């Protein structure tokens, strides 16, 4: 049994590569877009904040699998944009994640006292400069706890990408236990363990960052 499991490990690791690639790329897209959306939502001029709000509502309201199908099949059927499955999955996960991350970032922005913006302006900074140099650095530090949740969600939701044909770790696992039905339980446990290690270590790292970059005098209550 262990021999067969060990033999199929390379196959699982190949799937893991896809899973990680998908997670990282869609998080980059989601974070950049999320920051932009949050800034527009708080500081943008009419009608931009409302457009962003609609975007957030829509992408938070649609199940991920529907987003995948819309991007992968819908775009190619109706508009002739034929993305490959992996790219479509990055856009699906990234665009949805941006909607959630925009909320995380917006609440972080709102927790920064408004006086800072006024102070920055009084020092001669433009609005964009104050957002860039005063607001965003603080916002990023404040949003680490919420963001680490989003990381785990995106990581685990990559498995849904198989519906459009991305062969990630869960699918590779299925190949193995279809071949060896006796191993089903062990293969699934192994996959669970791999996910757990990833999430656990990433969260550890992020909470280290959170402590390292905490803003003095900005903690809510004492350390718990």
């Amino acid at each position: 049994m262990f021999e067969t499991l060990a033999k199929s490990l390379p196959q699982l690791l190949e799937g893991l590569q896809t899973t990680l690639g998908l997670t990282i790329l869609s998080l980059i897209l989601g974070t950049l877009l999320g920051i932009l959306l949050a800034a527009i939502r708080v500081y943008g001029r009419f009608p931009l904040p409302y457009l962003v709000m609609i975007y957030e509502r829509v992408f938070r309201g649609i199940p991920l699998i529907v987003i995948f199908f819309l991007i992968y099949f819908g775009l190619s059927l109706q508009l002739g944009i034929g993305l490959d499955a992996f790219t479509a999955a990055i856009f699906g996960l990234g665009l949805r994640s941006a909607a959630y991350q925009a909320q995380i970032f917006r609440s972080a922005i709102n927790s920064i006292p408004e006086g800072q913006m006024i102070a920055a302006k009084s020092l001669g900074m433009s609005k964009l400069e104050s957002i860039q140099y005063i607001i965003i650095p603080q916002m990023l530090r404040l949003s680490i706890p919420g963001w680490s949740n989003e990381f785990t969600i995106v990581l685990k939701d990559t498995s849904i990408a198989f519906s459009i044909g991305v062969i990630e770790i869960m699918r590779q696992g299925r190949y193995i236990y279809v071949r060896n039905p006796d191993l089903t339980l062990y293969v699934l446990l192994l996959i669970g363990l791999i996910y757990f290690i990833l999430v656990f270590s990433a969260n550890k790292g992020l909470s280290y960052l959170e402590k390292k970059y905490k803003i003095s005098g900005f903690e809510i209550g004492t350390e718990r």
Partner: protein
Amino acid sequence: MIKEKKKLVMLVIIAMIVPAILLSGCVEEKDENKIIVGTSADFPPFEYVDETGKIVGFDIEMVTRILENLNYTVEVKDIAFESLIPSLQAKKIDIIAAGMSITEEREEEIDFSEPYYQADLSVLIKKGSGVEINASHDLDNFTASIANLTIGAQRTTTGADWVKEHLIDTGLMDNENLKLYDLYIDAIADLDIGPARLDAIILDLPVAQTFAEDPDREVVYTIITGEYYGLGVREGDTTFLEKINAQLDEFIGSDDWAALITKYFE
């Protein structure tokens, strides 16, 4: 103020260009001569992934052979079964080979080739063993006539399911009269010994037919389940479908076909 506007314009331009570059790089280019076969590789022995990570199986080998005869290059893609038809319609794949039963519902969305596999079951016995079966088309008469026999089947197959559902669950047959085997070969060995061991085997028709090539065995009954597997192509892709059908016609029943059945079903 002007500086701020400039920055904003730059941002917007970047936001527009980056996805455009990304998109243009990822759009798949289609080679006229390449056919992408869509399957759901978790249905052994029709399609599954072997130790080397390659998609193999009865369907895959058959469709590859047919397409290569037509001078196409073949790429096999694994997609969730429920996404196969949308993928075909969105031109992500060109043909479905996934042990897909031909149903009216699916016929409305895609076109099917001629059936290449009959998912019917059959009864295989030893010739001259004196086993009597009422081969009438009335299913009740038939089931009653085999209820007293010792019947063999391969574990977890539709054959075993059929015996459980129609004979054991209905109380017609004792559980101990159903002998389950891990390998068909073992069941056949017991059948060859005779009624002392086994009276009949219930198994997939094409497999039974292969075994019945031996003059000592015969297929005495086909249990019609009404399920046929077909290859799926896009609706209106008629010239392609005709070519596939012609190839299928030629292939089914040939020696290569028999070899393929032996390879994957025994």
